[in-house]
C-alpha cells in the first residue's frame, strides 16, 4: 500500500546479558495500558522486566532497582506532571548512589518539554505513538551510553 512504512519488529538481543529494567507508574495516575504493552515489547525483545505497576513512589522504585540490580528505569506518566516528577526520580537515584542507572520517560509528553527533561538528566523520552522498534532501541541506547548528568 502506498505510504506504508516498512514493517519491522524488534528481535531479541544477541550474545549480551539481558538488560534488566524496572517499569513503574510514578504518582497517582492510573493509566497503565501503555506501560503493560511496553513491558511485553521489552520482554519479547529479550529483556528482563521488573513490572512494579501503579502508584509507585521514588522510594519504592529505588528499592526495586537495588534489589533487582536493574540496569535502567522506565517511568510512564499520563498526568502532565512529568516536569515535576521526572527530575525527582533522577535526583533520588543519584542520592541513593544509583546515579549510573538511566531513566526513560514514556507517556503523554509534548515535544516542547524534551529539552527541559533532558537537561534534568532524563536519558530518553518516548512520546505518544512510539513504535516497538523505537521503544527497544531507546532502552538499549540509554543502557549503552549511561545516564546524562543534569545540565545545571
Amino acid at each position: 500500500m502506498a505510504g506504508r512504512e516498512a514493517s519491522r519488529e524488534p528481535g531479541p538481543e544477541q550474545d549480551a546479558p539481558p538488560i534488566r529494567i524496572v517499569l513503574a507508574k510514578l504518582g497517582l495516575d492510573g493509566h497503565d495500558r501503555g506501560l503493560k504493552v511496553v513491558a511485553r515489547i521489552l520482554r519479547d525483545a529479550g529483556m528482563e522486566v521488573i513490572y512494579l505497576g501503579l502508584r509507585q513512589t521514588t522510594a519504592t522504585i529505588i528499592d526495586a532497582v537495588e534489589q533487582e540490580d536493574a540496569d535502567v528505569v522506565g517511568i510512564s506518566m499520563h498526568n502532565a506532571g512529568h516536569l515535576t516528577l521526572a527530575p525527582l526520580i533522577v535526583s533520588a537515584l543519584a542520592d541513593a548512589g544509583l546515579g549510573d542507572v538511566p531513566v526513560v520517560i514514556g507517556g503523554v509528553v509534548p515535544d516542547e518539554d524534551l529539552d527541559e527533561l533532558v537537561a534534568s538528566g532524563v536519558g530518553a523520552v518516548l512520546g505518544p505513538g512510539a513504535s516497538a522498534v523505537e521503544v527497544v532501541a531507546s532502552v538499549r541506547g540509554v543502557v549503552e551510553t549511561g545516564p546524562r548528568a543534569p545540565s545545571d
Partner: protein
Amino acid sequence: MFRCQIVGHPSSLWTVADQHRTLSGIPVDPVYGEGPLPGEYPYTRGIHAEMYRNRHWTMRMFAGFGTATDTNGRFKELLRSGGTGLSTAFDMPTLMGRDSDHPLALGEVGRAGVAVDTVEDMADLFADIDLAAVTTSMTINGPAPILLAMYVAVAEEGGVERGRLAGTLQNDILKEYQAQKEYLFPPRPSVRLVTDVIRFTAAEMPRWNPVSVSGYHIREAGSTAAQELAFTLANGFAYVEAAAAAGLDVDEFAPRLSFFFNSHSDFFEEIGKFRAARRIWARWMSERYGATDERSLKLRFHTQTAGVSLTAQQPEVNIARVALQALAGVLGGTQSLHTDSYDEALALPTESAARIALRTQQVIAHESGVTDVADPLGGSAYVEWMTDELERRAEEVFARLDDEGGGSILEGVYSGIESGWFMGEIAESAYRFAREVNAGDRIVVGVNAFTEGDEGRTGRLLRIGQDTEDLQRKRLAAVRTARDESAVHTTLDRVAADAGRTEVNLMPSLLDAARARATVGEVVDVLEGVFGTYTETVVV
C-alpha cells in the same frame, strides 16, 4: 425562525424547522422500516419514537483543569458557545481522594483535571452558573459520594434544593478495578457506597443519575468493542443485583441508571454495539430482573469519542477521526455526546480546540440531515448482523460470569476482579492491537503510514504549571484556617460510625462533613480506616 424562499417558485416556500426535508427539498418520514420501531421494546432502534426530531442529544463537553476558578471560566465559555450541559474532569489527587497538600499529590494538582479539596472549591467551580437550570456530570468514582455531597451542599447554600438538581455522577466503581484503576477501598464496601448513593438519589434527587455505568474506560484501557459491551452491561447487572440486595425495588432505581460508551473508529461495529446494548439491557431487565416500568428497560447513554485513537502525529487529522466517531454515536442513538479535541494526545484541550470539537457536533446536528430519521441504518443487513453478533459475544461473557458467580452476576464480577480476569482480557486485547500496528497490519494514518507532512506537534498547548499547585495549596490552607475544627471532627466521627453500620446510608453524614468544610482527603482517610484499602493482583 427563518424562512427560505426560492424566488420564482412560490409553491416551494417551506419552513426549515418544522418540516423535515432533504437539502434538495424531498420530504422524509420520521422512521422507515418494519417494527419493532424506535421507541418500542426491545429498543434496538432507539429509546424514542422520533429520536432527534424532537430534541438533539445533549452536547456535553468534558472540562477541568487548574483551580476551580480556572475551570469555571471554561464552563462558562462552553455554555456561551452552545454547549447544553456541563461535565467535570477532576485532577488525579481528587480522583484518588487525596488533598492537594498530600505528599503523593506532588506534581499532579490541577494538571489533568480540576482540583477540588473542599466545598469551597466546589462553590467556585459552579460560581455564576444556575444549578437549577443546567445538568451537570461529574466524572468521579472512588470518592463519588463525597463529591456529590459537596455539590448538593453548594446548591443548597445557594438556595437550590437538592430535588431540583439534574445531572449524573459516574460512581461506577467496578470498572475502576477492571480498567481505570481509580479505586480506593476493596470492592465490596465500595459497592455499598454505590448503593447508598442509589438509595439517596432515588428518595431525594429524582432528576439525578446516581451511576453512569461506563464502558468508556474499559475500551480506552484496550478492550475490544465486544468486551466493552459485555463488561459494561455485566457491571450494570451487578449494580442492579446489589441495589436489590440492599432492599430496593428494581423499578425504584433502574429508570435512573445510565450508561457511558466509547465511540471508536470502526464505524459499523460501534453502531452495532450501541444497538446491541439497548436490546440486551431491555431483555435482561425485563426477563431476569423483573422490571416492569418501561423506563427501567430503556438504556440511556452518553458517548465520548475515543481518546486513545487520537494521534500526536499530524494532530489536525484527529478532527476527521472525531467527526466519524461522533457520527457513529449519533447513528447509534446516543443521548449525549462529548467530542474529543484534536490536541488531546499531547495535553488537555485548548479553548479553541474544544470549540472545534463542539462545532463538529453542531455540523452533525444541524447540517448533515441525520437527525431527521430515527435509526436510519435499521434494516441494513450488515448493521443488523453486527448488532446480533455483538449481542451473541456479550451473552457468552454473561454466561461465564453467571456461572463463576453461582447464579449471581455481581459475584461473578467480584470474582473476575479478584482473579485479574478482566484485567488480563483487556491487556491481551491492548497488546494484540499494539502488535498489529507495529507490524503494519493495521494502518494508523500519520503514525505507521502516510507520515509525510508531520509539521511537528508543537502548536499552542494548554499548560498547567507548578504555580497552580502552589495556589491550590494556599486556597486549601485558607479553608483549613477559617473553619470550625470541632465541627470537622464531630462530623468525621459520625462518618466513621455510619461507615461501620451497613444498614445506615452514609450520604447524610457525608453532607454534614461537606458543610463543615472537611476535605476530600480527610473523609477518605476516615473511610479507609473502616473499609481498608485495595491492592490489585498485577496482570501484565
